[in-house]
């Protein structure tokens, strides 16, 4: 049975400035498990993709209103597992399978390349995406650090 050794929850406004804030906080939180540079890069990159999705896609045309939040929950386990859940209560994704395809994006082609889910999946050990149109999206990322 794996045990939680530390846990935190964050709630941030879905704005671009918070992309780097999330990465910094999560890096500091995970430091307790002494991840390698490579592992930390993987986590920072995967988290950044998920947070950017919230900023870019979850709350369109609302210009960062006060209640457009990103909810992040991070858990560290004694099995050296890091789990990061990133949620929003935005528009949701109509077709998650389609959204996960490389190069698929509804964003502006000049700034998004549709690689977000591919990066999250490649840089972690497991990724699950749950979404309901009109209700929001939750991405769960798991990374198991080397002993």
């Amino acid at each position, binding site marked *: 049975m794996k045990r939680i050794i530390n846990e935190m929850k964050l709630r941030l406004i879905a704005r671009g400035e918070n992309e780097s804030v999330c990465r910094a906080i999560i890096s500091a939180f995970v430091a307790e498990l002494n991840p390698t540079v490579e592992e930390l890069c993987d986590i920072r990159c995967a988290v950044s993709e998920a947070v950017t999705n919230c900023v870019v896609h979850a709350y369109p045309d609302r210009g960062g209103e006060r209640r457009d939040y990103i909810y992040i929950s991070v858990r560290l386990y004694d099995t050296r597992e890091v789990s990061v859940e990133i949620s929003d209560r935005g528009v949701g994704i109509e077709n998650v399978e389609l959204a996960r395809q490389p190069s698929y994006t509804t964003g502006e082609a000049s700034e*998004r390349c549709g690689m977000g889910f591919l990066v999250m999946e490649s840089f972690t050990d497991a990724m699950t995406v749950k979404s309901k149109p009109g209700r929001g999206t939750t991405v769960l990322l798991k990374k198991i650090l080397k002993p």
Partner: protein
Amino acid sequence: MQTTLKIVANEDKLRAYLPRELDHHAARPIREVLDRRLFEEKPTVLILDFSGVEFMDSSAIALIIGRASACESLGAAVILTGLSEHQKKLVRLSGALRTKNVSITEV
């Protein structure tokens, strides 16, 4: 370590020293400045220098692919330099190197 973009023109080459953090939020102004300089100076080579970049995600890939297509219309090549191992992994994963005028160099 710089936090802002620096662009140096040398004959027909344009070299862009990219800033420390290259995420979606940071990439937007960089894209605009780079495109303006590209079309003003019409170089034959655009060098994107990542040696000062401590963090990047797929926004950097979008930046590379977008500039590659701008350069293609100018007949220019894009050279990526100073990438860390992790950054190379990201670039390879994205397939950005399949774009015909993009290549990686160590120098």
